[in-house]
């Protein structure tokens, strides 16, 4: 049996088919959760945010153009929801029972990378820590670019901006990370 496309499931979900939507949630829950985790900075919030993202995807489905790909649209709703949640959290920052980045298994660097490009665990933890303080719009661009490994064309599509704007946001995000690391006395260069 061939798998039903995202777009087909989405159009069925648009006419109220919750089963079709459930299949979409099943299919994309890991990606959405990882984006939320990077945007939220801890697993507790990431769980709530993931639910919130899917609720928004469900309520905004009528705005989805079925002649286009579902994925960039879903990533856009997801990351915009995360931005809104980040902004609303700035006021009420709950630090209770959150899992710091350091306790999470972080994917190992690809073996093909040259030695000088690999990052120590300590550096990873420092970068992950600093990332939570990068402004939401830039963090959104960095997250989709790094976690989803999107090309800049795909990133622009997901953000709904021109390619040069998407690229600028990533560059500015990287420079913010660099500046914040320098302030903390880290040197990223190995």
């Amino acid at each position: 049996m061939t798998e039903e496309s995202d777009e087909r499931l989405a159009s069925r979900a648009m006419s109220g088919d919750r089963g079709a939507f459930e299949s979409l949630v099943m299919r994309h829950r890991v990606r959405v959760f990882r984006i939320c985790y990077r945007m939220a900075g801890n697993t507790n919030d990431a769980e709530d945010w993931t639910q919130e993202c899917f609720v928004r995807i469900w309520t905004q489905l009528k705005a989805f153009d079925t002649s286009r790909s579902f994925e960039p649209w879903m990533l856009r709703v997801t990351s915009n929801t995360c931005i809104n949640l980040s902004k609303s959290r700035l006021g009420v920052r709950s630090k209770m029972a959150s899992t710091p980045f350091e306790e999470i298994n972080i994917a190992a660097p690809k073996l093909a990378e040259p030695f000088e490009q690999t990052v120590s665990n300590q550096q990873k933890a420092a970068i992950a820590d600093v990332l939570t303080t990068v402004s939401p719009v830039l963090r959104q661009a960095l997250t989709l670019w790094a976690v989803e490994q999107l090309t800049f064309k795909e990133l622009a599509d997901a953000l709904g901006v021109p390619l040069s704007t998407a690229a600028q946001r990533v560059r500015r995000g990287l420079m913010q990370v660099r500046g914040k690391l320098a302030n903390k006395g880290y040197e990223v260069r190995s």
Partner: protein
Amino acid sequence: MRCGYVQRHIVVFLENQMPPDVAEKIKSHLSWCKHCSDVAKQVEEVRQPVKDSMGVDIEPPPGMVQSVMARIENMDQAAPAPPDRRYAFIAVLAIIVLFLAIFVVPKILKLY
């Protein structure tokens, strides 16, 4: 080629996603423009480390799909009336109240 263009697209260039002819032009610009080559160097220092640090292999908790579907079901039950009709009702109500306030209430007040 202008510095602004080079710097706007520097990450795209560093990730080898520029069309070859444009990439060639950026490359030659970087060979003589110190300002842009400094920017490129700074970006390059953090580009791969940040990418590596952001990769995660965590999974959502097991009940995630059910929680999402439960929320959606609750939401649909809580809001049975389609929003358009509800807004129309509020609008009509507002017009009636306004009408009463402007024409009827002053008359009643004058009578007493």
